[in-house]
């Protein structure tokens, strides 16, 4: 299961991922998803395929706490977001909805590279360049939430909020 890399730069804000002018679409995620990242790259939303990757620089998702931002990325079928770093709230939101947000060195990944994520091994394989990128494990609590597919599923399973 591999997918293509869609490259973005540093400091992509939630205003670029899910613009405020689309506020009226927040309860219509299918429609909202058509505008995903359109201010950063117009070609992304119409062409991204299930299993593809968003690959970014530092501080991806800065700004607002709108959870619709990772939600529409997930809805478009994105397998994972790989970034040098994430803004705090966006990172937590991604994990909470079961979308892997992976902190890793993304410089060696080029636009269009075929990538494969081996989450449990902590490895992103760049099949195009025959490079394996190791990434550090996320915190145990984050990992436990992601493994359940998100925070609601986690709380449903445990009946409570626990620390991993």
């Amino acid at each position, binding site marked *: 299961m591999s997918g293509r890399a869609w490259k973005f730069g540093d400091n992509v804000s939630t205003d670029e991922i899910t613009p405020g002018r689309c506020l009226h679409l927040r309860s219509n995620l299918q429609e909202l998803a058509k505008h995903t990242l359109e201010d950063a790259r117009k070609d992304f939303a119409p062409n991204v395929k299930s299993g593809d990757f968003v690959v970014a620089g530092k501080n991806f998702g800065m700004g607002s706490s709108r959870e619709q931002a990772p939600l529409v990325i997930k809805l478009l079928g994105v397998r994972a977001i790989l970034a040098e770093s994430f803004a705090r709230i966006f990172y937590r939101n991604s994990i*909470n909805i079961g979308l892997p947000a992976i902190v890793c060195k993304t410089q060696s990944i080029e636009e269009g590279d075929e990538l494969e994520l081996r989450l449990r091994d902590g490895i992103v394989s760049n099949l195009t360049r025959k490079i394996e990128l190791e990434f550090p494990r996320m915190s145990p609590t984050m990992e436990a939430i992601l493994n359940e597919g998100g925070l609601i599923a986690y709380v449903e399973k445990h009946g409570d909020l626990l620390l991993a």
Partner: protein
Amino acid sequence: MVGKTLAEKLIGWHTASGTASAGEVVIVKVDYTFSHDAAGPLLINQLERLKTIGTQDTEWTSNTVFFVDHAVPAPTKEIANDQLLVRSFAMNNGIALSDAGNGICHQVLAEEYASPGELIVGTDSHTCTAGGLCAFATGMGATDIAVAMKLRKTWLRVPESFKLVIEGHLPRGVYAKDLILKALSILGTDGATYKALEFHGRVVEEMEVAGRLTLTNMAVEAGAKTGLVRSDEKTRKYLRELGREEKWREIKADEDAVYEREIVIDATELEPQVSIPGSPDKARPVSSVKGTKVDEVFIGSCTNTRIEDMRVVGQIFKGREKARGLKLIVTPSSRRVYTQCLDEGIIKILIEVGATITPPGCGVCFGALGGIPADNEVIFSSSNRNFPGRTGNPKAQTFLGSPATAAATAINGYISDPREFL
């Protein structure tokens, strides 16, 4: 025993063990949770999924507030439907409702709800504003807040703290907004990610809560989890004026608290600051961008449209007119501020200067309602963000500055130094 930062103290008071140290991951009891019309529909959906989890009584609703503030009055049927859902859910479940026109959530929280020592989480990144009252307050997404509402707790990594010491005194024409823009230019948009920003120094000690709320409001623009100011006699005075003095308690960081980084800013020599389009950390002295032609001025947002800001704006606008062809939009931050402006004659000054006054709310700041710029227009805004597309048109550009700098700019039609009018 090593001393505690404000973040460690406030979080520690909400853990089972009664203590917290930077780097620990803890479960904390939550005092207040809130949401609003932009996140509420998603949150209500998650609350439905959590129906059988946690407490089955309705106790959780007593310390929960819902706001309708993000686009008021509703500009589209879709937004009206979202607001109806939030309004009905609150009314049907005994949740406090701050409805359209009452004000921006962070301002109303400061006026009516947030108190020193509390732990507050809400579905908005500027929740950190309440740190100006020495509450540990941080923004999260709808799913986190749904869980926090229902279980009355959340999990946090206790942040390391940066100590921002603001020495000297504030010169004429320089305000809390200029200080935080200067601090952001040092920190960068992610320079304080996961950290708490603790504001210290003579300027902060002498600053009223209104200004402190401006400092903490923009902590998130450096990536911080929250911004904090001690609770002192200024805090007490603020709460007294709101009829909430009994909520006051003195809180300060320990003398020997450990900070990851210390930054000292001498306010005395500081010029008014302006952030150029792109992000709020791109701040520089007003003199370096003075003369840039501006098409629209917005004085509003949760950052700095309290009565203290409006008085300065009124002083600058009094007896003057805005530049010909310039659009001027002013949004008081709450019904209370709006009423104060009316009582003090500021609304009349605003109307006479040529401003369009919008109801208290968030719409203009994030491009959801009103003030959307035309292609290639330049906005000067007193808000907190100027990311590409923020104001509703990716082909427009936004500069940020204080309400005073915005007012001066509105009169001249180009970026101006407010000291010219003070």
